[in-house]
């Protein structure tokens, strides 16, 4: 998004104020979204899945080559100031900065979908390039953040673990029993997962396999809700427990899951 604020005058909202494009400060508002999520759900330390949708990036802007100074008209103060301002508005930059701050484990839950412009970045109001940009979405499968991987992560994020009793403390460990449920329509989620992965999917922690994903057995015939019964596991006091829904994906093991954190026992 590039200098959208110059296309339209600011908008005045009575008894609130006058405002302009939010992209001036947060052209990629991913940091705002993370801060807002803490404000909405203060008990949640991190989101399950974060998906950032880009609107295109110039490939050259990611180049590691540093050009030489040409002349005062092409590389003078005004041109450098303009380029700095434009560069500061790049949405990909905000994503890169966030990504650099994430550890390897957290990065598994963050997804960026974006395209590279075929050439220079088009003007905001250049309708003649809309079809070309549309084709880029289908012609540029990004091997690291491809839509299928994002879809898989979104589908798996709909599962959660529900305790069906107070954990029992025994020989230095807490034993928990519960149920794995799905917060959306189970039949649709299961069908979608089977479409993406033909291989056997398992529920597992870092220590053990808890059970297999068996849509035909775990779906209720009446309400189509998903319920995996009687999951029994042990946890060590004050440790982070993570369910992993692991599947072979394009010959590379990927693990996505949902978190259970407990304290105070």
């Amino acid at each position, binding site marked *: 998004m590039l200098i959208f604020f*110059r296309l*339209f005058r600011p908008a005045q909202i009575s008894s609130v*104020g006058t405002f302009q494009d*939010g992209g001036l400060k947060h052209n990629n508002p991913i940091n705002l979204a993370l801060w807002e*999520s803490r404000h*909405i759900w203060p008990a949640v330390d991190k989101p399950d899945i974060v998906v950032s949708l880009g609107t295109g990036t110039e490939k050259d802007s990611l180049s590691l080559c540093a050009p030489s100074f040409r002349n005062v008209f092409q590389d003078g103060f005004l041109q450098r100031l303009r380029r700095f301002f434009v560069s500061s508005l790049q949405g990909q930059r905000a994503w890169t900065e966030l990504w650099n701050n994430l550890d390897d484990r957290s990065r598994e839950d963050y997804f960026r979908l974006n395209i590279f412009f075929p050439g220079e970045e088009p003007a905001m109001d250049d309708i003649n390039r809309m079809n070309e940009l549309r084709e880029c*979405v289908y012609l540029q499968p990004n091997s690291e953040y491809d839509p299928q991987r994002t879809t898989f992560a979104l589908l798996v994020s709909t599962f959660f673990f529900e305790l069906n009793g107070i954990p029992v403390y025994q020989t230095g460990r807490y034993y928990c029993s519960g149920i794995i449920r799905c917060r959306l329509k189970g039949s649709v989620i299961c069908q979608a997962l089977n479409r993406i992965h033909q291989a056997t999917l398992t529920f597992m922690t870092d220590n053990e396999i808890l059970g297999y994903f068996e849509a035909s057995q775990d779906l209720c015939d009446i309400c189509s809700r998903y319920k995996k019964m009687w999951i029994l596991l042990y946890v060590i006091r004050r440790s982070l427990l993570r369910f992993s829904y692991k599947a072979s994906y394009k010959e590379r093991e990927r693990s996505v899951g949902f978190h259970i954190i407990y304290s105070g026992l």
Partner: protein
Amino acid sequence: MILLLELVLVRYPEVVFDFADLLLCCTGGLIVLSLFLRQWGVSQCIQVFDNLSRQFFRNREGKRTGIIHYLRRLLKCWLLDGYYDASALEDALKLNFGIHQRMFDSLQPSFGTKVAVTATKISDATPFVFSNYNGLGIRNPNCGE
């Protein structure tokens, strides 16, 4: 942006509106509001915004380049505080969304997706968030600076 969403979600239209708990955007606000609050299909969304863009920007002055053209655009922006007529955009939006449609009106009052659109103050570009929710936590007064 819509097309990237299409790749991820369009195959599962039955649950597409339930996937997101929080959506936050700036210029893409109209798209998000259409998809998740008005529950338009992705194809419908693409078609409407394609038509809206072509209709509104059809008078764009081609590919004219040059210092004179650039200075003329700059002068127009300065005098009119913008290159395009915002009231014309508002009329086009009313035509597509209806004259009574408010920003966060949802088809289902109990729909759970939280949506926010960002803006900035004209005085010092302080970010503002227009949302259809209130949070439980206490927001840092310097959040977003």
